Every structure is written in C-alpha cells, then in structure tokens.
C-alpha cells in the first residue's frame, strides 16, 4: 500500500482573504489567514479526514484544493494536474477528475431543476455522451447506483428527504467518473439513522470505483469510522496528522487530546470513568492569530517558547506528523 504513489499532493497550501475598509477606495487593512500552510497527500482509494472546529479553515482548504478559490501560496497536484497553474484544457480535465459533495443538501441542488438535469449537468458540460438518450440512460444508471429509483428522474429536489437529496448530490458528483471527491461535511445535516446510510453508500462507491476521498467533518466519531488517515486543523494550520488508530489511540498534540476527550461517548459507564480535558476559552480570530503556536493561549502545556516560535511540522514516527514544541 505504501508504495503506491499518492493521487493528491498538497504542499504548504495557503489561502488568505483580504480584510478591506472603505466602499469606493477599498484598502486592505488585514488578512484572514483561513488556511495557512497545509501539507498532506492521499493515496488512491484511500480517505483522508480533515477535522477541526468551525472556523478552522476546513471548508476553505477543500475549496482551495480544487481551485475554487485561487490559492495564495503553495502547490496542489491532483492526478498529476497542477491546480494553480493548469491551462484551460487541463482545468476542464481536473473538473472531471475531481468533484465535490456539499454539506447542505437543501442549498446545493437547484430547486427549479429536475433530478435528471441536476445529475446530468456534468455530462452536458463535459460533453461526455453524444446523444440525449445516452445521457438519460447514464443518469438513470447513476440514480440506481446511489440507491434511488430511476423512475424519479423527472422529480424536483423538494420531493425528496434530506438523505435522498444527499444521494442526488452524490450521483451528480459521480456523473463525470471522477477519481477524487472532496466530501465537505456530507452528513452533518442529516439525522443519525440516515447518516449511516449515506456513509455506507460512500464506502460502497469507494470500493467499487477506487475513489479517493477528502472527508471534511467535525464529527470525530464518524471520521474515525470512515477515514484511513486523519489530519487535525486548528485556526488554519495543521496540528497533527496520522493513521486513524494511531491518532485516536496515541494523540500527541494537546489540541488533539483535548478535542478527543470532549467527544461524548455513548456509554455511560465509560463516560463517567473518562478523564476529561475541558479547554477554556474560544477559538481566537484568524485575522490576527496568536503569535508562535496558534494554540498556546488555550494550551494546558504552553511554555515560553510556544508564544514566540511557530512549531515545526515534524514527522515523529512513520506517518505521524505533529506541530508542537512540547512533543
């Protein structure tokens, strides 16, 4: 497995948004450092989880990765295509190879389009099939793949439940036969009993088509279940990256430790026996992030060096990366 070359390589990716003042003559007064130095790679057929609290830059990272936002710095290679420097033709190819599933199945489907037009749009844009009939057949096949009925092709999004709509979103993402899909909180808007259905569907499709996923989520229990590797972000920067069981059983970064101990366990006896680290305070603003290590104002281990120097991104053991002075 290790010998396989990664299909997605992200190297020191940064995305800053300018903060402007004034209406006519806007001047930049600061930068929101939404993503500030992200590095990881994903092997084909695997899933990398990107976790962190709201506002930590997970979604921005996913969108910058696919070139939906121009990156401020850094490099992203997806299946050999350099996202930032791709030509028009290469970019069209990238849009076919890499797809996205969005969080809100109510907002991400056009309410005036039928399911057939929604799922068939990538086929039309990329001119993947010559005739209308072929496209209709393919859309029906896709609907079947995600567990919907091909007869529902002429229905509108409002006729479906949340879980079914998310299936439509999955079908649309699959239409252009991609290799890599960014799943941006694909289940957080769904009820528990429906979440498992969608997660199982994503896993089946991965097995069947060898798909590679970037799974962006804040639900740490689900990430442990779904992902092979997990990256933890805090305020735009990477805190820790490791294989699933390594990260959950031997977390090294104090933020990862606190995050994991905050996750409620559905087992009252275990929950009572557990040692809890409750972090004080809130996540600071990414406009003027704390100096040195961004986590130091909330960190139980913080020392003098933490507020002065940015900790290096180091590989502690094979495949286990961490950015902390105290590890």
């Amino acid at each position, binding site marked *: 497995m290790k010998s396989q070359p990664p299909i997605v390589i992200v190297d020191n990716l940064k995305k800053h948004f300018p903060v402007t003042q004034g209406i006519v003559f806007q001047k930049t007064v600061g930068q929101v450092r939404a993503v500030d130095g992200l590095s990881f790679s994903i092997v084909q057929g695997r899933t990398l989880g990107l976790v962190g609290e709201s506002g930590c830059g997970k979604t921005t990272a996913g969108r910058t990765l696919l070139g939906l936002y121009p990156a401020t710095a850094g490099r992203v290679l997806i299946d050999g295509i350099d996202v930032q420097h791709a030509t028009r033709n290469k970019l069209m190819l990238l849009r076919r190879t890499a797809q996205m599933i969005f969080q809100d199945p109510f907002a991400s489907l056009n309410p005036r389009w039928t399911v057939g037009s929604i799922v068939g749009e990538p086929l039309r844009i990329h001119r993947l099939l010559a005739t209308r009939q072929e496209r209709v057949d393919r859309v029906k096949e896709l609907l079947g793949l995600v567990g919907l009925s091909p007869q529902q092709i002429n229905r509108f999004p409002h006729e479906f439940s949340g879980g079914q709509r998310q299936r439509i979103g999955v079908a649309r993402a699959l239409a252009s036969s991609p290799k890599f899909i960014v799943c941006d909180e694909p289940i957080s808007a769904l*009820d528990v009993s429906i979440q*498992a259905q969608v*997660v199982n569907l994503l896993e089946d499709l991965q097995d069947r088509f060898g798909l590679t996923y970037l799974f962006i989520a804040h639900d740490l*229990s689900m990430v442990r279940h779904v992902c092979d590797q997990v990256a933890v972000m805090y305020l735009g920067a990477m805190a820790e990256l490791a294989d699933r069981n390594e990260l959950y059983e031997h977390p090294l970064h104090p933020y990862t430790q606190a995050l994991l101990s905050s*996750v409620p366990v*559905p087992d*009252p006896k275990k929950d009572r026996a557990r040692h809890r680290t*409750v*972090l004080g305070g809130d996540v600071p603003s990414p406009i003027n992030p704390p100096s040195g290590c961004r986590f130091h104002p909330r960190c139980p281990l913080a020392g003098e060096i933490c507020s002065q120097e940015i900790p290096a991104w180091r590989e502690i053991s094979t495949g286990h990366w961490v950015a902390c002075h105290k590890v």
Partner: protein
Amino acid sequence: MGRILEVKDLVTRFHTAEGTVYAVNGVSFHLDEGEPLAVVGESGCGKSVTMMSVLRLLPEPPAQIASGTAFFKGRDLLKMSEEVIEHDVRGREIAMVFQDPMTSLNPVLTIGYQIEESLKAHLDLEDEPARERAADLLAQVGIPESPKRLAAYPHQFSGGMRQRAMIAMALACEPSLLIADEPTTALDVTIQAQIVELMLELRQRRKLSLIWITHDLGVVAGLAERVLVMYAGYIVEEATVDDLYDRPQHPYTLALLAALPRVDRRRNQRLKSIPGAPPNLLVQPHGCPFAPRCEFAISRCRTENPGLTDVGPNHRIACWIDVRTRKQR
C-alpha cells in the same frame, strides 16, 4: 423526592394547509424534583413539540393540544389561563434554553437589558438591583468581567458565550425546572463540553430539575439519569441511562445505537443503517410507527400500536416483540 412534573396522554396536532400533522400522539412521562431527564430522538419525533406544548409556547392555531394533562407542582399547565402561565410559570418556575442562541437573543438589545427584563417582570426589581443581579448571573455562568459585558450586544459574543448568556437568562428567576432544547447542537465539541459541564454544576448547586432534549446519544450518556426515546410522536422506550445503553430493548433504540460510530473503538464493521426514513406525520398513525423500518416487525405491529409496558424496574418499552428471543412477548 416529589414529582415536579407529570404529563399524561398529551396529544398535539397542527392544522396546516397540507392537512393535519400528528406531532405528539399520547405522551406520558414524569419528572422528579432535582432529576436530570433526557429526551432523545431524531428531527420531527416530537421531542420539542412535547415540551413546547407543556409550556403552551405553540401558537394556537395552527397548533392544537387535543387532549392530556400536565401537572406541574399540582397545577395543570394545560388548563391555566394565558396570563397566569405567563406571569407565574414561564421564565419564573420553568425556564427554557433553546438551540440557536443567535436567533433566540434579540440582536438590537444588550445582553444586560435582556437579562434584566426578566428580573424586572417577574421579581419586580428596580434598575440598580436588577443590574447587579444580572452581572452576578453572568459571572455564575462563567463570563469574565461580567459587569462590563452587560453592555455588549449578542453579536459581540461568541457562540459559546451566547449560550452561557441564555443560560444566565433562564436562571434569572431561580426556576425549579430548566428545559434545555438541544442547547449544544450549534456548538463545537470543545465548547459543548464546557456547556455540559456548566449545566451539570448549576444543576447540583441549585438543585434544579432538568429536561435535556437532544438527538445526540453520546451527550445523553454523560448527563442524564433517565432517558426517554421518542419516535414519530410516541415515547418508544424509557429507561435509566445504564439500562438504555447496556440493555436497550426497543428495536429503534437498538438500531440507533448500532448506527452510531464510536470514537473510543476501532472500526470492525460497517455501520448498521436503518433502512427507509421516518414516517410522514401528515398520515394518521396506525400500528407501531417504527414497523415499516423494523427488522423484527410482525403483522400485528402494522395494525395495533403497542402501548408502553414495563419490562423491568424503571424500564418501559412500546413493542410487541422481545428483541432477545425475537418472539412476541
């Protein structure tokens, strides 16, 4: 310990343009003084509507409380006049904390004003003592520099601080019962842990009775003693937390727990998903509401609704089947 709240056979419906929504279909439960009770269920299961009906917070029409009683400290809340319930009960004796602190706070009034408002209305306090008490309340829920913070507007607070302010507001008149409706759902896990800790501490210190409404079976394990599981407007299982997680007996509870990934365990298999979707509440219920999705269902389940029956001490379920033997009980 005495009973503080006893709800019997509550039925709530909504009359809408699309037809009648059967939201709550005969719910009975009780709460003892000082007890923490959790109500669990997915969206649309009637957990919030039940509590809103008890507090008479639903606009009538479209809502209609068709039948039932809700005795709180010996008085039936469902028969009280609007004036009495507003002045004596809501905010005074029973307070509620809602899910989204941004929409339940008024954005154009200061935090201080909104806390003082309830103190002045219920306790007839003057300006100065009301302000002092408001500052004291904010300090109690863990907001630093509280006297200064009274002048802040909700948008100047973070999500966690807003929820703390909401809790301060709810506690203003020293209620004996606090109903928290998904108070941590909009918050991040680290902030959720802070709020859960705060609520548990306040409950102990003030001997509060607490009803915690949530969809998260994880949170429940850490904070309640007794749990009600709701589905499609019915209570389907009632048990102590230990029983519910160790010996769940209703097929829905079983399925829900099996569908949950665990942060504390290695993955060993696929998640067991529950097929289908929750029922359409516009259809008048008949039979067990979970039957169409239930792996144990028999023909009787589709025609006759099993009422809640005892299956052990403090353990009741609404099911015809014994899930351990797969036979009719």
